[in-house]
């Protein structure tokens, strides 16, 4: 296994679950960071309850959970800069565009779908 994998594939990690009650969010982020570390073109998508992963003012430690949300800051280090959030999912959940990470792009359903379609491989969590 080499750090130099030749590929021009684009990878989408699609998050659809809330952060704390299942391992899905953390395992999605683990995968994203590994793809990034192998210099694969990787984008993160958040829709449905997945948007609860990116909103600000959460406090995982208060419920005795190691705050994996802090690990999102490592995305930048691996040049994962495409972070897309579904506007409709935010609105349905009465959430404002207050995020704990930078570079978030809030997209309409149509734009979100088009960006998703533009990736070669999509992993949904």
């Amino acid at each position: 296994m080499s750090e130099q994998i030749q590929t021009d594939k684009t990878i989408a990690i699609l998050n659809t679950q809330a952060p704390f009650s299942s391992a899905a969010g953390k395992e999605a982020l683990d995968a994203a960071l590994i793809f990034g570390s192998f210099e694969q073109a990787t984008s993160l998508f958040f829709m449905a309850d997945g948007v609860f992963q990116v909103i600000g003012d959460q406090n995982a430690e208060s419920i005795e959970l190691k705050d994996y949300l802090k690990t999102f800051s490592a995305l930048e280090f691996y040049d994962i800069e495409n972070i897309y959030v579904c506007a409709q999912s935010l609105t349905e959940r009465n959430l404002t565009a207050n995020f704990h990470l930078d570079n978030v792009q809030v997209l309409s359903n149509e734009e979100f779908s088009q960006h998703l379609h533009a990736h070669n491989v999509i992993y949904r969590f």
Partner: protein
Amino acid sequence: MAMLHIIRSSGFTSNALTQCLNMTLPEDTILLMDDGCYNLNHPMMLEAQFKQQELAVYYISLHASARAQSSNQSSFSAIDLDDVLGLIFKHDNAITWS
């Protein structure tokens, strides 16, 4: 018999909230716990409370704040796990909607 409904999942992802609200009777109590706190602002929760004013609704304060969730419904009461034990014994039975 008065029933305690413990909701532990988001009504935006799972059908459990709908199932629960289909089963509540006026003397029942709803407790939002864990991801159930995401329902604090769910339209169905607000509608249920509006339709059945007697329905008591509680939520675990710590579980809501950890998730950056809050309620502006004065009739929804923030409680802790000690209070949950009181609710368990005050009611005749309980269903957990995970």
